[in-house]
Protein backbone atom coordinates (compact mmCIF):
# COMPACT_ATOMS: atom_id res chain seq x y z
CA UNK A 1 0.00 0.00 0.00
CA UNK A 2 1.41 3.39 -0.91
CA UNK A 3 1.51 6.20 1.61
CA UNK A 4 -1.65 8.28 1.40
CA UNK A 5 -1.14 11.97 0.82
CA UNK A 6 -4.10 13.90 2.14
CA UNK A 7 -1.92 16.55 3.72
CA UNK A 8 -3.35 19.98 3.00
CA UNK A 9 -5.88 18.74 0.44
CA UNK A 10 -8.90 19.87 2.44
CA UNK A 11 -9.71 22.28 5.23
CA UNK A 12 -12.39 22.74 7.85
CA UNK A 13 -13.95 26.04 6.87
CA UNK A 14 -17.06 26.20 9.04
CA UNK A 15 -18.12 24.82 12.40
CA UNK A 16 -21.03 25.12 14.80
CA UNK A 17 -22.10 23.52 18.05
CA UNK A 18 -24.79 23.86 20.66
CA UNK A 19 -25.09 22.74 24.26
CA UNK A 20 -26.45 24.32 27.41
CA UNK A 21 -25.38 24.61 31.06
CA UNK A 22 -28.75 23.03 31.88
CA UNK A 23 -27.71 20.01 29.85
CA UNK A 24 -30.88 20.38 27.85
CA UNK A 25 -31.68 21.98 24.50
CA UNK A 26 -35.15 23.21 23.58
CA UNK A 27 -35.18 21.66 20.13
CA UNK A 28 -34.00 18.40 18.66
CA UNK A 29 -34.05 16.22 15.57
CA UNK A 30 -33.91 17.77 12.12
CA UNK A 31 -34.67 21.26 13.48
CA UNK A 32 -31.50 21.13 15.54
CA UNK A 33 -29.48 19.55 12.73
CA UNK A 34 -30.70 22.25 10.32
CA UNK A 35 -29.70 24.98 12.75
CA UNK A 36 -26.21 23.52 13.06
CA UNK A 37 -25.79 23.15 9.29
CA UNK A 38 -26.97 26.71 8.74
CA UNK A 39 -24.60 28.07 11.39
CA UNK A 40 -21.63 26.11 10.09
CA UNK A 41 -22.30 27.24 6.51
CA UNK A 42 -22.69 30.86 7.68
CA UNK A 43 -19.41 30.49 9.56
CA UNK A 44 -17.78 29.44 6.29
CA UNK A 45 -19.57 31.99 4.13
CA UNK A 46 -21.19 29.22 2.09
CA UNK A 47 -24.76 28.15 1.39
CA UNK A 48 -26.50 24.81 0.91
CA UNK A 49 -26.14 25.34 -2.84
CA UNK A 50 -22.39 24.89 -2.42
CA UNK A 51 -22.69 21.54 -0.64
CA UNK A 52 -22.08 18.41 -2.70
CA UNK A 53 -21.34 15.93 0.08
CA UNK A 54 -23.06 14.93 3.34
CA UNK A 55 -22.05 12.81 6.33
CA UNK A 56 -24.56 11.52 8.86
CA UNK A 57 -24.46 8.62 11.30
CA UNK A 58 -28.12 7.81 10.69
CA UNK A 59 -28.87 8.18 7.01
CA UNK A 60 -26.99 10.66 4.83
CA UNK A 61 -29.53 10.04 2.06
CA UNK A 62 -32.43 10.94 4.33
CA UNK A 63 -30.63 14.06 5.50
CA UNK A 64 -29.85 15.15 1.93
CA UNK A 65 -33.46 14.57 0.95
CA UNK A 66 -34.64 16.65 3.89
CA UNK A 67 -32.23 19.42 2.92
CA UNK A 68 -33.41 19.22 -0.68
CA UNK A 69 -29.96 18.67 -2.10
CA UNK A 70 -28.61 15.96 -4.39
CA UNK A 71 -25.10 15.15 -3.16
CA UNK A 72 -22.47 13.24 -5.10
CA UNK A 73 -20.75 12.08 -1.91
CA UNK A 74 -22.53 10.38 1.03
CA UNK A 75 -20.93 8.87 4.14
CA UNK A 76 -23.07 6.97 6.63
CA UNK A 77 -20.21 5.50 8.64
CA UNK A 78 -21.44 4.61 12.11
CA UNK A 79 -18.75 3.41 14.48
CA UNK A 80 -19.88 5.38 17.52
CA UNK A 81 -18.34 8.57 18.83
CA UNK A 82 -15.37 8.64 16.46
CA UNK A 83 -17.60 8.56 13.37
CA UNK A 84 -17.01 12.30 12.90
CA UNK A 85 -13.24 11.94 12.75
CA UNK A 86 -13.73 9.18 10.20
CA UNK A 87 -16.03 11.50 8.19
CA UNK A 88 -13.27 14.09 8.00
CA UNK A 89 -10.73 11.48 6.98
CA UNK A 90 -12.99 9.97 4.33
CA UNK A 91 -14.18 13.34 3.02
CA UNK A 92 -10.63 14.70 2.84
CA UNK A 93 -9.69 11.63 0.80
CA UNK A 94 -12.74 12.08 -1.42
CA UNK A 95 -11.91 15.75 -1.94
CA UNK A 96 -8.27 14.87 -2.70
CA UNK A 97 -9.53 12.38 -5.29
CA UNK A 98 -11.81 14.99 -6.84
CA UNK A 99 -15.05 13.24 -5.88
CA UNK A 100 -16.57 16.30 -4.21
CA UNK A 101 -15.76 19.81 -3.11
CA UNK A 102 -17.77 20.91 -0.06
CA UNK A 103 -18.86 18.32 2.50
CA UNK A 104 -21.12 18.90 5.50
CA UNK A 105 -21.27 16.64 8.56
CA UNK A 106 -23.87 17.09 11.26
CA UNK A 107 -24.87 15.56 14.58
CA UNK A 108 -27.66 16.25 17.03
CA UNK A 109 -28.80 14.18 19.99
CA UNK A 110 -31.04 15.22 22.86
CA UNK A 111 -31.14 12.36 25.38
CA UNK A 112 -32.28 14.67 28.21
CA UNK A 113 -34.98 16.45 26.24
CA UNK A 114 -36.19 13.07 24.97
CA UNK A 115 -36.77 11.81 28.51
CA UNK A 116 -39.88 13.92 28.90
CA UNK A 117 -41.24 13.33 25.47
CA UNK A 118 -43.50 10.48 24.37
CA UNK A 119 -41.52 7.32 23.70
CA UNK A 120 -38.33 8.93 24.93
CA UNK A 121 -35.81 7.83 27.49
CA UNK A 122 -34.33 4.37 27.56
CA UNK A 123 -30.63 3.98 27.10
CA UNK A 124 -28.50 0.95 27.90
CA UNK A 125 -29.78 0.38 31.43
CA UNK A 126 -32.27 -2.37 31.98
CA UNK A 127 -32.90 -3.73 28.55
CA UNK A 128 -30.04 -4.02 26.10
CA UNK A 129 -30.51 -2.42 22.72
CA UNK A 130 -31.20 -4.64 19.74
CA UNK A 131 -28.76 -5.68 17.07
CA UNK A 132 -26.12 -6.79 19.57
CA UNK A 133 -26.42 -10.53 19.19
CA UNK A 134 -22.90 -11.68 20.11
CA UNK A 135 -22.89 -9.30 23.04
CA UNK A 136 -26.32 -10.47 24.20
CA UNK A 137 -25.05 -14.02 24.27
CA UNK A 138 -21.47 -13.61 25.49
CA UNK A 139 -21.25 -10.43 27.56
CA UNK A 140 -24.53 -9.10 28.90
CA UNK A 141 -25.63 -12.22 30.82
CA UNK A 142 -22.82 -11.36 33.22
CA UNK A 143 -24.41 -8.03 34.06
CA UNK A 144 -21.80 -5.88 32.30
CA UNK A 145 -23.06 -2.33 32.73
CA UNK A 146 -22.67 -0.62 29.38
CA UNK A 147 -20.83 1.33 28.39
CA UNK A 148 -18.94 2.14 31.60
CA UNK A 149 -18.31 -1.49 32.55
CA UNK A 150 -16.18 -1.96 29.46
CA UNK A 151 -14.00 1.04 30.33
CA UNK A 152 -13.78 -0.10 33.94
CA UNK A 153 -12.23 -3.35 32.73
CA UNK A 154 -9.65 -1.40 30.73
CA UNK A 155 -8.87 0.79 33.74
CA UNK A 156 -8.55 -2.27 35.97
CA UNK A 157 -6.06 -3.83 33.58
CA UNK A 158 -4.06 -0.60 33.21
CA UNK A 159 -3.83 -0.21 36.98
CA UNK A 160 -2.68 -3.80 37.41
CA UNK A 161 -0.10 -3.64 34.64
CA UNK A 162 1.32 -0.17 35.25
CA UNK A 163 0.39 0.87 38.77
CA UNK A 164 -1.88 3.64 37.52
CA UNK A 165 -3.85 5.07 40.44
CA UNK A 166 -7.37 6.33 40.96
CA UNK A 167 -5.81 9.69 41.91
CA UNK A 168 -4.04 9.92 38.56
CA UNK A 169 -7.24 9.18 36.67
CA UNK A 170 -9.05 11.72 38.83
CA UNK A 171 -6.49 14.36 37.84
CA UNK A 172 -7.82 14.20 34.29
CA UNK A 173 -11.35 14.97 35.52
CA UNK A 174 -10.03 17.82 37.68
CA UNK A 175 -8.06 19.49 34.86
CA UNK A 176 -10.89 19.04 32.40
CA UNK A 177 -13.28 20.71 34.85
CA UNK A 178 -10.83 23.59 35.22
CA UNK A 179 -11.03 24.15 31.46
CA UNK A 180 -14.83 23.94 31.58
CA UNK A 181 -14.87 26.97 33.87
CA UNK A 182 -13.98 29.03 30.78
CA UNK A 183 -16.75 27.59 28.59
CA UNK A 184 -20.09 29.36 29.15
CA UNK A 185 -21.93 26.45 27.47
CA UNK A 186 -20.41 23.79 29.73
CA UNK A 187 -22.73 21.69 31.88
CA UNK A 188 -20.45 21.88 34.94
CA UNK A 189 -18.06 24.77 35.60
CA UNK A 190 -17.37 24.71 39.34
CA UNK A 191 -13.87 23.48 40.19
CA UNK A 192 -13.44 19.99 41.63
CA UNK A 193 -10.57 18.33 43.45
CA UNK A 194 -9.08 14.86 43.27
CA UNK A 195 -10.78 14.16 46.60
CA UNK A 196 -14.13 15.17 45.08
CA UNK A 197 -13.64 12.62 42.31
CA UNK A 198 -12.64 9.87 44.74
CA UNK A 199 -15.55 10.74 47.03
CA UNK A 200 -18.09 10.63 44.21
CA UNK A 201 -20.08 7.38 44.13
CA UNK A 202 -18.27 4.34 42.80
CA UNK A 203 -20.18 3.27 39.69
CA UNK A 204 -18.21 0.33 38.37
CA UNK A 205 -14.81 -0.03 40.00
CA UNK A 206 -12.35 1.52 39.51
CA UNK A 207 -14.45 4.28 37.92
CA UNK A 208 -16.24 6.83 40.10
CA UNK A 209 -19.14 8.93 38.91
CA UNK A 210 -16.78 11.86 38.19
CA UNK A 211 -14.59 9.59 36.05
CA UNK A 212 -17.56 9.25 33.70
CA UNK A 213 -18.78 11.55 30.96
CA UNK A 214 -22.04 13.42 31.10
CA UNK A 215 -25.31 12.65 29.43
CA UNK A 216 -26.45 15.94 27.89
CA UNK A 217 -28.15 17.30 24.80
CA UNK A 218 -25.77 18.58 22.17
CA UNK A 219 -25.32 19.18 18.48
CA UNK A 220 -22.74 20.33 16.01
CA UNK A 221 -21.75 20.56 12.36
CA UNK A 222 -18.65 20.99 10.25
CA UNK A 223 -17.99 22.07 6.69
CA UNK A 224 -14.96 20.59 4.96
CA UNK A 225 -13.87 22.08 1.63
CA UNK A 226 -11.09 21.58 -0.87
CA UNK A 227 -8.00 23.67 -0.20
CA UNK A 228 -8.66 25.65 -3.39
CA UNK A 229 -12.18 26.48 -2.25
CA UNK A 230 -11.09 27.14 1.34
CA UNK A 231 -8.69 29.95 0.53
CA UNK A 232 -11.24 32.67 -0.13
CA UNK A 233 -13.96 31.90 2.40
CA UNK A 234 -15.10 33.80 5.49
CA UNK A 235 -12.65 32.41 8.06
CA UNK A 236 -9.03 31.28 7.95
CA UNK A 237 -8.95 27.65 6.79
CA UNK A 238 -7.99 24.92 9.26
CA UNK A 239 -6.19 22.36 7.15
CA UNK A 240 -6.36 18.60 7.53
CA UNK A 241 -2.70 17.69 7.75
CA UNK A 242 -3.07 14.06 8.70
CA UNK A 243 -5.86 11.53 9.15
CA UNK A 244 -5.97 7.85 10.05
CA UNK A 245 -8.20 5.19 11.59
CA UNK A 246 -7.41 2.25 13.84
CA UNK A 247 -9.98 -0.44 14.63
CA UNK A 248 -9.37 -3.30 17.03
CA UNK A 249 -12.70 -4.87 18.03
CA UNK A 250 -16.38 -4.31 18.65
CA UNK A 251 -17.00 -6.03 22.03
CA UNK A 252 -14.64 -5.21 24.88
CA UNK A 253 -14.07 -8.94 25.49
CA UNK A 254 -12.48 -9.12 22.03
CA UNK A 255 -10.05 -6.22 22.52
CA UNK A 256 -6.59 -7.70 21.92
CA UNK A 257 -4.94 -5.78 24.80
CA UNK A 258 -7.12 -3.68 27.09
CA UNK A 259 -4.30 -1.19 27.64
CA UNK A 260 -3.62 -0.49 23.93
CA UNK A 261 -6.21 1.07 21.62
CA UNK A 262 -6.29 1.46 17.85
CA UNK A 263 -4.90 4.93 18.52
CA UNK A 264 -1.50 3.29 18.65
CA UNK A 265 -2.00 2.73 14.91
CA UNK A 266 -4.07 5.76 13.88
CA UNK A 267 -2.05 8.28 15.90
CA UNK A 268 1.41 7.56 14.50
CA UNK A 269 -0.05 7.16 10.99
CA UNK A 270 -1.81 10.54 11.15
CA UNK A 271 1.25 12.24 12.66
CA UNK A 272 3.47 10.74 9.96
CA UNK A 273 1.16 12.02 7.24
CA UNK A 274 1.17 15.45 8.85
CA UNK A 275 4.94 15.39 9.28
CA UNK A 276 4.72 16.22 12.98
CA UNK A 277 5.83 14.81 16.32
CA UNK A 278 3.76 14.73 19.51
CA UNK A 279 5.91 17.56 20.92
CA UNK A 280 4.70 19.86 18.13
CA UNK A 281 1.04 19.60 19.17
CA UNK A 282 -0.52 22.56 21.01
CA UNK A 283 -3.91 21.00 21.70
CA UNK A 284 -5.14 17.44 22.04
CA UNK A 285 -8.87 17.11 21.79
CA UNK A 286 -8.91 13.53 23.04
CA UNK A 287 -12.26 11.83 23.42
CA UNK A 288 -12.88 11.63 27.17
CA UNK A 289 -15.83 9.32 27.57
CA UNK A 290 -14.10 8.31 30.80
CA UNK A 291 -10.87 9.43 32.42
CA UNK A 292 -9.20 6.17 31.38
CA UNK A 293 -10.12 6.85 27.74
CA UNK A 294 -8.16 10.12 27.74
CA UNK A 295 -5.23 8.51 29.52
CA UNK A 296 -5.01 5.77 26.90
CA UNK A 297 -5.01 8.39 24.11
CA UNK A 298 -2.03 10.18 25.66
CA UNK A 299 -0.04 6.95 25.61
CA UNK A 300 -1.21 5.58 22.28
CA UNK A 301 -0.64 8.85 20.42
CA UNK A 302 2.88 8.99 21.82
CA UNK A 303 2.63 11.98 24.17
CA UNK A 304 4.13 9.64 26.76
CA UNK A 305 5.24 6.02 26.79
CA UNK A 306 2.84 3.11 27.33
CA UNK A 307 2.10 2.78 31.00
CA UNK A 308 3.31 6.28 31.88
CA UNK A 309 0.02 8.10 31.34
CA UNK A 310 -0.69 8.33 35.04
CA UNK A 311 2.63 9.95 35.85
CA UNK A 312 2.31 12.16 32.75
CA UNK A 313 -0.97 13.77 33.85
CA UNK A 314 -0.48 13.97 37.60
CA UNK A 315 1.27 17.37 37.71
CA UNK A 316 -1.74 19.01 36.06
CA UNK A 317 0.19 20.12 32.98
CA UNK A 318 -2.78 19.46 30.69
CA UNK A 319 -5.04 21.95 32.46
CA UNK A 320 -5.18 25.74 32.27
CA UNK A 321 -1.85 27.43 32.94
CA UNK A 322 0.22 24.49 31.77
CA UNK A 323 2.96 24.96 29.24
CA UNK A 324 3.08 22.88 26.09
CA UNK A 325 0.29 20.44 25.40
CA UNK A 326 -3.25 21.31 26.55
CA UNK A 327 -6.08 18.78 26.55
CA UNK A 328 -9.82 19.21 26.08
CA UNK A 329 -10.04 22.97 26.48
CA UNK A 330 -13.82 23.02 25.99
CA UNK A 331 -14.33 21.00 29.17
CA UNK A 332 -14.60 17.71 27.34
CA UNK A 333 -17.19 15.00 27.57
CA UNK A 334 -16.52 14.98 31.29
CA UNK A 335 -17.70 18.55 32.00
CA UNK A 336 -18.89 20.29 28.80
CA UNK A 337 -21.28 17.99 26.97
CA UNK A 338 -21.66 14.37 25.94
CA UNK A 339 -24.82 13.61 23.99
CA UNK A 340 -23.84 10.01 23.15
CA UNK A 341 -21.39 10.54 20.30
CA UNK A 342 -19.01 13.33 21.21
CA UNK A 343 -16.55 13.25 18.29
CA UNK A 344 -18.10 16.28 16.58
CA UNK A 345 -17.21 18.53 19.50
CA UNK A 346 -13.54 17.56 19.30
CA UNK A 347 -13.38 18.98 15.77
CA UNK A 348 -15.33 22.13 16.60
CA UNK A 349 -13.12 23.08 19.55
CA UNK A 350 -9.92 22.29 17.64
CA UNK A 351 -11.00 24.57 14.79
CA UNK A 352 -11.96 27.41 17.11
CA UNK A 353 -8.72 27.17 19.08
CA UNK A 354 -6.65 27.20 15.89
CA UNK A 355 -8.57 30.27 14.68
CA UNK A 356 -8.09 32.00 18.04
CA UNK A 357 -11.82 32.28 18.74
CA UNK A 358 -12.11 30.71 22.18
CA UNK A 359 -11.95 33.75 24.46
CA UNK A 360 -10.83 33.11 28.02
CA UNK A 361 -9.66 29.59 27.28
CA UNK A 362 -7.71 30.55 24.17
CA UNK A 363 -4.27 28.94 24.02
CA UNK A 364 -1.37 31.35 23.45
CA UNK A 365 0.18 29.08 20.87
CA UNK A 366 -2.39 27.60 18.54
CA UNK A 367 -0.91 26.23 15.36
CA UNK A 368 -1.44 22.47 15.61
CA UNK A 369 -4.33 20.53 17.12
CA UNK A 370 -5.26 16.85 17.16
CA UNK A 371 -8.86 15.67 17.26
CA UNK A 372 -8.80 12.05 18.38
CA UNK A 373 -12.10 10.22 18.53
CA UNK A 374 -12.93 6.93 20.21
CA UNK A 375 -15.93 4.91 19.07
CA UNK A 376 -17.73 1.95 20.55
CA UNK A 377 -15.93 0.66 23.65
CA UNK A 378 -12.36 1.75 22.79
CA UNK A 379 -13.15 0.00 19.50
CA UNK A 380 -12.52 2.38 16.59
CA UNK A 381 -10.12 5.31 16.84
CA UNK A 382 -9.94 8.19 14.40
CA UNK A 383 -7.09 10.71 14.51
CA UNK A 384 -7.23 14.02 12.66
CA UNK A 385 -4.25 16.40 12.71
CA UNK A 386 -5.33 19.98 12.04
CA UNK A 387 -3.19 23.02 11.40
CA UNK A 388 -3.31 26.67 10.45
CA UNK A 389 -2.06 28.04 7.17
CA UNK A 390 1.35 28.57 8.80
CA UNK A 391 1.77 24.81 9.29
CA UNK A 392 1.16 23.89 5.65
Amino acid at each position, binding site marked *: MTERTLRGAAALVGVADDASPTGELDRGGRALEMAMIRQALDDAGLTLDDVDGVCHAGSPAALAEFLGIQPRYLDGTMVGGSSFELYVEHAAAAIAAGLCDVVVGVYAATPRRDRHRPGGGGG*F*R*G*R*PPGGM*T*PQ*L*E*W*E*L*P*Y*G*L*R*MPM*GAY*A*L*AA*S*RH*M*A*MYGTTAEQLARIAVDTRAWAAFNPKARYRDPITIDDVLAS*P*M*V*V*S*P*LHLLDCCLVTDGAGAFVLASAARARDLAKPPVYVLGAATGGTHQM*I*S*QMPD*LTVTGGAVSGPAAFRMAGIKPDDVDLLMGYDSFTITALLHLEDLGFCAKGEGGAFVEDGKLGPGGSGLAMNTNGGGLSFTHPGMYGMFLLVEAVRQLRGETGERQLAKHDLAVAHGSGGVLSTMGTIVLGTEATL
Partner: protein
Amino acid sequence: MTRLLEPPAPSEVSAPFWDATREQRLVLPWSTATGLPMWYPREVDPADPDAAIEWREAAGAGTVYAFSVHHRPGPGRDEADGLYVVALIELAEGVRMMSNVVGCEPDDVTVGMPVRVAWHPLPDGRHLPQFTPA
Protein backbone atom coordinates in the same frame (compact mmCIF):
# COMPACT_ATOMS: atom_id res chain seq x y z
CA MET B 1 -30.11 -15.53 44.15
CA THR B 2 -29.74 -12.97 41.43
CA ARG B 3 -32.01 -13.48 38.48
CA LEU B 4 -29.57 -13.11 35.62
CA LEU B 5 -30.28 -11.70 32.23
CA GLU B 6 -30.58 -15.07 30.58
CA PRO B 7 -28.57 -15.59 27.44
CA PRO B 8 -30.76 -15.91 24.37
CA ALA B 9 -31.80 -19.32 23.08
CA PRO B 10 -28.77 -20.99 21.52
CA SER B 11 -28.24 -20.52 17.82
CA GLU B 12 -27.13 -23.30 15.51
CA VAL B 13 -23.63 -21.92 15.99
CA SER B 14 -23.63 -21.79 19.78
CA ALA B 15 -25.72 -24.89 20.54
CA PRO B 16 -22.71 -27.18 21.16
CA PHE B 17 -21.46 -24.77 23.82
CA TRP B 18 -24.78 -24.41 25.60
CA ASP B 19 -25.66 -28.09 25.32
CA ALA B 20 -22.42 -28.99 27.10
CA THR B 21 -23.28 -26.60 29.92
CA ARG B 22 -26.29 -28.79 30.73
CA GLU B 23 -23.71 -31.31 31.92
CA GLN B 24 -21.53 -28.57 33.41
CA ARG B 25 -18.88 -29.08 30.79
CA LEU B 26 -16.99 -26.10 29.35
CA VAL B 27 -16.25 -26.63 25.67
CA LEU B 28 -14.50 -24.37 23.19
CA PRO B 29 -14.56 -24.21 19.38
CA TRP B 30 -11.18 -25.02 17.86
CA SER B 31 -10.00 -24.07 14.41
CA THR B 32 -8.69 -27.04 12.47
CA ALA B 33 -7.04 -24.51 10.14
CA THR B 34 -4.90 -22.82 12.80
CA GLY B 35 -4.95 -25.46 15.52
CA LEU B 36 -6.07 -22.78 17.99
CA PRO B 37 -9.23 -22.28 20.00
CA MET B 38 -11.42 -19.32 19.16
CA TRP B 39 -13.81 -17.34 21.24
CA TYR B 40 -16.65 -16.55 20.67
CA PRO B 41 -18.25 -19.28 18.52
CA ARG B 42 -18.51 -18.18 14.88
CA GLU B 43 -20.55 -19.37 11.92
CA VAL B 44 -17.34 -20.17 10.06
CA ASP B 45 -13.67 -20.21 10.87
CA PRO B 46 -12.32 -16.78 9.89
CA ALA B 47 -8.99 -18.43 9.04
CA ASP B 48 -10.64 -20.75 6.51
CA PRO B 49 -14.38 -20.79 5.88
CA ASP B 50 -14.17 -24.36 4.59
CA ALA B 51 -12.26 -25.77 7.57
CA ALA B 52 -14.12 -27.81 10.16
CA ILE B 53 -14.64 -26.38 13.65
CA GLU B 54 -14.08 -28.89 16.44
CA TRP B 55 -15.56 -28.59 19.90
CA ARG B 56 -13.14 -29.67 22.63
CA GLU B 57 -13.48 -29.73 26.35
CA ALA B 58 -11.62 -26.99 28.21
CA ALA B 59 -9.76 -27.47 31.47
CA GLY B 60 -12.01 -24.91 33.15
CA ALA B 61 -9.01 -23.13 34.60
CA GLY B 62 -7.88 -19.59 34.00
CA THR B 63 -6.78 -16.29 35.46
CA VAL B 64 -8.48 -12.95 35.93
CA TYR B 65 -7.36 -10.64 33.10
CA ALA B 66 -9.37 -7.60 34.24
CA PHE B 67 -12.34 -7.07 36.52
CA SER B 68 -14.82 -4.49 37.72
CA VAL B 69 -16.84 -4.54 40.90
CA HIS B 70 -20.24 -3.28 39.79
CA HIS B 71 -21.73 -0.96 42.40
CA ARG B 72 -24.48 0.07 39.99
CA PRO B 73 -26.30 -2.79 38.33
CA GLY B 74 -26.04 -3.77 34.69
CA PRO B 75 -28.58 -5.66 32.60
CA GLY B 76 -30.55 -8.31 34.49
CA ARG B 77 -29.29 -7.12 37.87
CA ASP B 78 -30.89 -5.04 40.54
CA GLU B 79 -29.63 -2.67 43.24
CA ALA B 80 -30.89 -5.22 45.77
CA ASP B 81 -28.46 -7.81 44.42
CA GLY B 82 -25.58 -5.82 45.88
CA LEU B 83 -22.04 -5.73 44.53
CA TYR B 84 -20.93 -8.26 41.95
CA VAL B 85 -17.79 -8.80 39.92
CA VAL B 86 -17.70 -8.73 36.13
CA ALA B 87 -14.41 -10.07 34.83
CA LEU B 88 -12.53 -11.06 31.73
CA ILE B 89 -11.10 -14.52 32.27
CA GLU B 90 -8.09 -15.76 30.34
CA LEU B 91 -8.57 -19.49 29.99
CA ALA B 92 -5.63 -21.89 30.09
CA GLU B 93 -6.37 -22.67 26.43
CA GLY B 94 -5.52 -19.05 25.52
CA VAL B 95 -8.90 -17.44 24.87
CA ARG B 96 -10.46 -14.67 26.92
CA MET B 97 -14.13 -14.65 27.90
CA MET B 98 -16.45 -12.37 29.80
CA SER B 99 -17.75 -13.84 33.05
CA ASN B 100 -18.27 -13.23 36.75
CA VAL B 101 -16.05 -14.03 39.68
CA VAL B 102 -18.16 -15.53 42.47
CA GLY B 103 -17.49 -17.38 45.68
CA CYS B 104 -15.34 -14.69 47.28
CA GLU B 105 -15.66 -11.13 48.49
CA PRO B 106 -15.55 -8.66 45.57
CA ASP B 107 -12.67 -6.86 47.29
CA ASP B 108 -10.60 -10.04 47.22
CA VAL B 109 -10.52 -10.27 43.43
CA THR B 110 -7.22 -9.30 41.80
CA VAL B 111 -5.87 -9.26 38.25
CA GLY B 112 -3.87 -12.43 37.69
CA MET B 113 -5.81 -14.40 40.29
CA PRO B 114 -6.19 -18.10 39.36
CA VAL B 115 -9.80 -19.17 38.96
CA ARG B 116 -11.76 -22.23 37.94
CA VAL B 117 -15.16 -22.59 36.37
CA ALA B 118 -18.28 -22.69 38.55
CA TRP B 119 -21.76 -23.24 37.18
CA HIS B 120 -24.78 -21.03 37.68
CA PRO B 121 -27.99 -22.89 36.82
CA LEU B 122 -30.36 -21.26 34.35
CA PRO B 123 -34.11 -21.98 34.40
CA ASP B 124 -34.00 -23.96 31.13
CA GLY B 125 -31.41 -26.47 32.35
CA ARG B 126 -28.43 -24.72 30.82
CA HIS B 127 -25.69 -23.35 33.06
CA LEU B 128 -23.84 -20.07 32.86
CA PRO B 129 -20.09 -20.46 33.33
CA GLN B 130 -18.80 -18.27 36.13
CA PHE B 131 -15.47 -18.48 37.90
CA THR B 132 -14.40 -18.91 41.49
CA PRO B 133 -10.95 -18.63 43.13
CA ALA B 134 -8.92 -21.74 42.35
